[in-house]
């Protein structure tokens, strides 16, 4: 708020010299942060910079090793979330803290249920929840099952919960990760309204565009330390990136690549599936990818992207349609057969599908080689000397930072884990690779490295299907962009001739009828 300098109101919150260590890992070191009434203060930094840890300290989930927390000028000790809640702090977590099987009302009141003698007073609960729900424009039947709501509504429900508890300080941890551009806009309007009503908001993000759209001040964290706290209007994106990464040469523009070739490598026609557990069913999908081409698949998550990725690699079976790789029909083949024919896959959930999270780096790297053993060869030694040496080579070739090939995968950072996946998949010299959310949770340095590897792959004629929720990523890498909405391809654009706004429109299905393929 620009009024800071005139009236000089005292901050509602001051964090001073916060240090938090987890064993040998220093998550926060001497971090300072303050918040004024009616202010939206953004906290930015890369994954692992210590944003979430800092906020968990503020919310009483962790206790700092050193430093003080002052609320309204008074030093407080927050030992558990309840303490923070009682001091008027509310947190909207990145992963929703909503019990899916509970009703809307039960979720709003969880932990502060009105009623006497351990009984739940439904009438009073409804009355108490009505005010906050109206403030957020949440017109819902309170007995609706929460799990059936869409993510944007669930997020509003999270904010309702916070208001129900009477919070004056609201922490939002990466709130836009699951929203469409339009929903994000709506959220920002809402946040500004709440701030105008006197709430103070801490907005955690690593998406610079959003930070500039909503924040009054920006604090940058890097490696657990505060780098700077500056009014947003005094900053530009490149300055923030430089502060976040500590480097001034990070490329945010389009990746230079060879032009695509003519021959079609991957051809998908009429592909339909049944409903997925967390995703829409595919509804007669058609598209082609040429050699050396990157086709971006954009869309709000849950509109069939995961279904598409899984059906392409073969961990899920289609109901109808055909998938062809360089003229060979893959539709009825098992995963291993598809991979043998030259299809590769970088799954979206790295921890579950990409690497053996409790296995070793070598076990993660060698999956491709070990797939080729047949019959009695299955009893052969899995990791002979040659394969171990190859593993060491890969670690240096892909600059994987690890203590060695036998290190457990979970000891690596997200970026290095993703390099294991990329090394394994690209070393198979695939004809076509399906990338699902390839840089999620990966730091900027590693992202650049991975983009270069993708560019290299296209240079040797690999066709790339890039499924991503990050529009910037899609616009930087793709030749063509396809947009998915409710399991259908609703639009096709040339990457260099379209814009975020246009894609955003397609993603909400606004133009679906007009351009349906």
């Amino acid at each position, binding site marked *: 708020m620009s009024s800071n300098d005139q009236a000089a109101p005292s901050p509602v919150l001051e964090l001073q010299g916060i240090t938090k260590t987890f064993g040998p890992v220093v998550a926060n070191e001497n971090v300072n942060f303050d918040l004024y009434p009616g202010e939206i203060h953004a906290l930015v930094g890369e994954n692992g910079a210590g944003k979430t840890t800092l906020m968990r300290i503020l*919310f009483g989930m962790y206790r700092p090793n050193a430093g003080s927390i002052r609320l309204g000028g008074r030093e407080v000790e927050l030992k558990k979330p309840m303490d923070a809640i009682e001091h008027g702090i509310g947190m909207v*977590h990145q992963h929703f803290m*909503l019990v899916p099987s*509970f009703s809307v009302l*039960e979720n709003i009141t*969880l932990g*502060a249920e009105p009623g006497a003698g*351990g009984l739940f007073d439904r009438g009073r609960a409804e009355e108490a929840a009505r005010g906050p729900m109206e403030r957020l424009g949440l017109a819902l039947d309170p007995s609706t099952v929460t799990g059936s709501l869409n993510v944007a509504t669930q997020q509003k429900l999270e904010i309702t919960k916070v208001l129900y508890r009477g919070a004056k300080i609201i922490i939002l941890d990466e709130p836009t990760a699951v929203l469409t551009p339009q929903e994000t806009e709506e959220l920002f309007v809402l946040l500004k309204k709440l701030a105008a009503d006197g709430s103070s908001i801490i907005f955690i993000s690593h998406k610079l565009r959003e930070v500039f759209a909503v924040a009054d001040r920006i604090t940058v964290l890097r490696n657990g330390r505060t780098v700077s706290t500056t009014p947003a209007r005094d900053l530009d994106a490149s300055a923030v990136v430089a502060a976040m990464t500590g480097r001034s040469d990070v490329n945010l523009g389009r990746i230079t690549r060879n032009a695509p070739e003519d021959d079609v490598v991957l051809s998908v026609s009429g592909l339909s599936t049944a409903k997925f557990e967390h995703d829409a069913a595919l509804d007669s999908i058609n598209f082609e990818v040429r050699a050396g081409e990157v086709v971006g698949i954009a869309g709000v998550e849950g509109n069939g992207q995961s279904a598409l990725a899984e059906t392409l690699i073969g961990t899920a079976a289609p109901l109808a349609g055909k998938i062809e790789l360089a003229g060979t029909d893959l539709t009825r083949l098992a995963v291993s057969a598809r991979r043998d024919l030259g299809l590769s896959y970088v799954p979206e959930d790295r921890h579950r599908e990409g690497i053996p999270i409790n296995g070793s780096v070598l076990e993660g790297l060698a999956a491709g080689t070990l797939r080729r053993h047949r019959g009695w060869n299955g009893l052969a030694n899995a990791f002979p000397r040659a394969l171990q040496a190859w593993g060491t080579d890969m670690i240096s070739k892909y600059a994987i930072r690890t203590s060695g090939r036998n290190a457990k995968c979970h000891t690596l950072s997200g970026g290095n884990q993703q390099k294991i996946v990329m090394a394994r998949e690209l070393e198979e010299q695939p004809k076509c690779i399906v990338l699902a959310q390839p840089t999620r949770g990966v730091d900027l340095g590693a992202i650049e490295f991975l983009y270069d590897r993708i560019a290299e792959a296209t240079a040797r004629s690999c066709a790339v299907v890039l499924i991503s929720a990050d529009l910037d990523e899609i616009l930087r890498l793709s030749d063509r962009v396809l947009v998915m909405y409710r399991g259908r391809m609703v639009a096709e654009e040339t990457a260099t001739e379209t814009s975020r706004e246009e894609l955003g429109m397609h993603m909400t299905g606004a133009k679906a009828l007009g351009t349906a393929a």
Partner: protein
Amino acid sequence: MDWIDAFLASGIRFTTPILLAALACLPTAWTKDLNVGLEGAMLFGAFSGVVIGLSTESGIAAVGLTVLIGAACGAVFGYLITYLRVNVFVAGIVLNVFAAGATVYLLRSMFGVKGTLSDDRIPAMASVSIPGIDGIPVLGAVLSGHSILTYVSWAIIVVAALAVRYTVLVRHLKAAGEHPAALTAAGGNVTRMRILAQVWCFALCGLAGVQLSMGQLTLFTEGMTSGLGFVALAAVIFCRGKVLLLALMSVGFGLSSAVAVQVNASVMPPQFAQMIPYLVAFIGLIVLARTAKDGGIRIATPVLED
């Protein structure tokens, strides 16, 4: 019609321990710490009931103390699986083996007997005859003439069903299992809920055990639970957290156990008759897996990584 009466009466008799054990286990299913050690906890309950009954010659003392001891053991078990981070599946399996060994060990070192402990001084649970209903065919067999713990188990069904609807506690138990982080963030105490569920589980398993050793007979035999705990576990898994469904399942298993006793050996070898409840559960499991939308149920098993 006598055989119908006899069948129903013995069906109810068999139902009671299964029902009590299943009701015991239910909250642990809510908190997603499904206790697979029901069998062991029941065996301890049966043993404790007989031992206390024998030394105090009072049925009430036997029941009361067994429940209290059960609750205390539940707290210890809860401490193990929360603060000491012992996997609940491992702990449950160990409990079963431990109970089988420890009851025999205690039986031999305390009473010097092997196999069965029976004594005239062991008090039997009072059985309640409801005047008026007693004489009515079918209805009398179902409603009257059972051990007092049978009526207690029915009361617990009602209490549990009401608690699910109206109490904050059950909401917190379920939240602790379904989304513990949400409960923590809302200021609830996940650990406390998880321990509480185990306390309840052990206390009620104690009751189920007492019903076995003092409600139907007045003796303790090595391994006298003979798989009843696992049948109750199956009931808990099949009911998906619903109290009334749980009661229904338990009655089903109880009746199928009764078949084993009522069927004459000339009709069917006794081993086949004894198999019935397990077969019913087995087939039920397959049917459930085939029909459930989310691919059936999975028991939480530990990750074996170091």
